[in-house]
């Protein structure tokens, strides 16, 4: 009887242990799948932006609507992915409760970036652009900055954190993605890599898209105003930069 009881206990223990192992394995597979899917999502969104810049826009000419087709697919994917993951708009950074915290973190890097742009502008004979006088463009700039920050931080940074967690690897991935989308314009690639690093790091500490968009819009406005057109090539990126 003792032997039987002992056998029975050991059997139960064995089953429990097997179940735990199976659970661990299931969890491990799930984590792996989660990371794979996050990597695929990042790649898919970057591909859409590159398709717009390198394939669709050069062929579509001045028709910006056709260029918006792959971008629309990317934003639909982002929306559906957020929904499928059960994330709220607040999770992505559409929030106001941490606005001042994010602004506080952004002030010094934004001022430093602005001073650097002014210095480069002075050295290269800039400050000739009439673009900042185009009020429609100036009004549109913060909105475009917000859309870019949503894609970059609210989606790519969030998925990069699933892939590699918070820290330098996910920050570097965001910066590289942002710079990649501004190739082959060398100055914009450099500027967006630096901006991408800072904004990604701040988003990981205080995820607020409005504050990031404000910094992005201000620095973009300053870049267009301060740097000479010969350097910026009308902010062209992708295939249109070459033409």
């Amino acid at each position, binding site marked *: 009887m003792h032997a039987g009881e002992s056998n029975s206990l050991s059997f139960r223990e064995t089953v429990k242990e097997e179940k735990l192992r199976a659970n661990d394995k299931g969890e491990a597979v799930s984590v792996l799948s989660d990371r794979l899917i996050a990597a695929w999502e990042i790649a898919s969104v970057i591909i*859409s932006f590159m398709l717009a810049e390198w394939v*669709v826009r050069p062929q579509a000419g001045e028709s910006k609507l056709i260029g918006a087709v792959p971008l629309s697919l990317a934003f639909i994917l982002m929306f559906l992915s957020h929904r499928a993951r059960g994330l709220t708009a607040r999770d992505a950074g559409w929030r106001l409760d941490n606005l001042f915290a994010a602004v506080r973190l952004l002030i010094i890097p934004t001022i430093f970036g602005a001073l650097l742009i002014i210095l480069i502008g002075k050295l290269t004979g800039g400050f000739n652009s009439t673009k900042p006088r185009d009020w429609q463009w100036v009004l549109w700039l913060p909105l475009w900055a917000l859309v870019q920050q949503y894609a970059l931080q609210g989606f790519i940074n969030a998925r990069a954190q699933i892939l590699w967690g918070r820290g330098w690897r996910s920050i570097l991935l965001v910066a590289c993605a942002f710079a990649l989308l501004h190739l082959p314009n060398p100055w914009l690639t450099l500027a967006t890599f630096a901006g991408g690093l800072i904004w990604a790091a701040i988003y990981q500490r205080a995820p607020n898209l409005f504050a990031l968009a404000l910094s992005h819009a201000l620095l973009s406005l300053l870049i267009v105003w301060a740097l000479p057109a010969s350097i910026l090539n009308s902010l062209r990126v992708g295939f249109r930069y070459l033409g």
Partner: protein
Amino acid sequence: MDSSLPKIPKVTRLSRIARYLILKSILDVIIVGVFAVSFYYSAFNPHFRGWFDEAGEQGMKGWVIDRSQPDNRVEVQLYVDDHFVESHAADYPRPDLVTAGMSRDERHGFSFNAPRLAAGEHEARVYAVHASGVGARRALQMIGVPIKFNVGR
């Protein structure tokens, strides 16, 4: 982040996103395909028909028709030994094109005078010019095959 997730199993959520990604990848491929085909179709006219008949010291002759616009005269360019020589519209009379049913009117031929060339063997090519992208692009499409010819002393 996980605290706000609804009670849907994680694997189901991931497989749903995977389905979205597969669907988007298919749409991306379709977009690339559509743009590649439409670019090729607009940049290189598939409706050019023609032939480079002869090349020699007497001149270079042939014909070309744009079957999508048969009333238009196609611009042709002559190259000898890979150097541009001359360009003009293919509007030289070729009654044989009408007889053969290739065209309703005969003015689709081209005839170039031979340029001054050094003695020896040379190669002539004739290209039809096709403009696209509201004049932003001009593509050259070879008519017929290159013809080699000799110039005597």
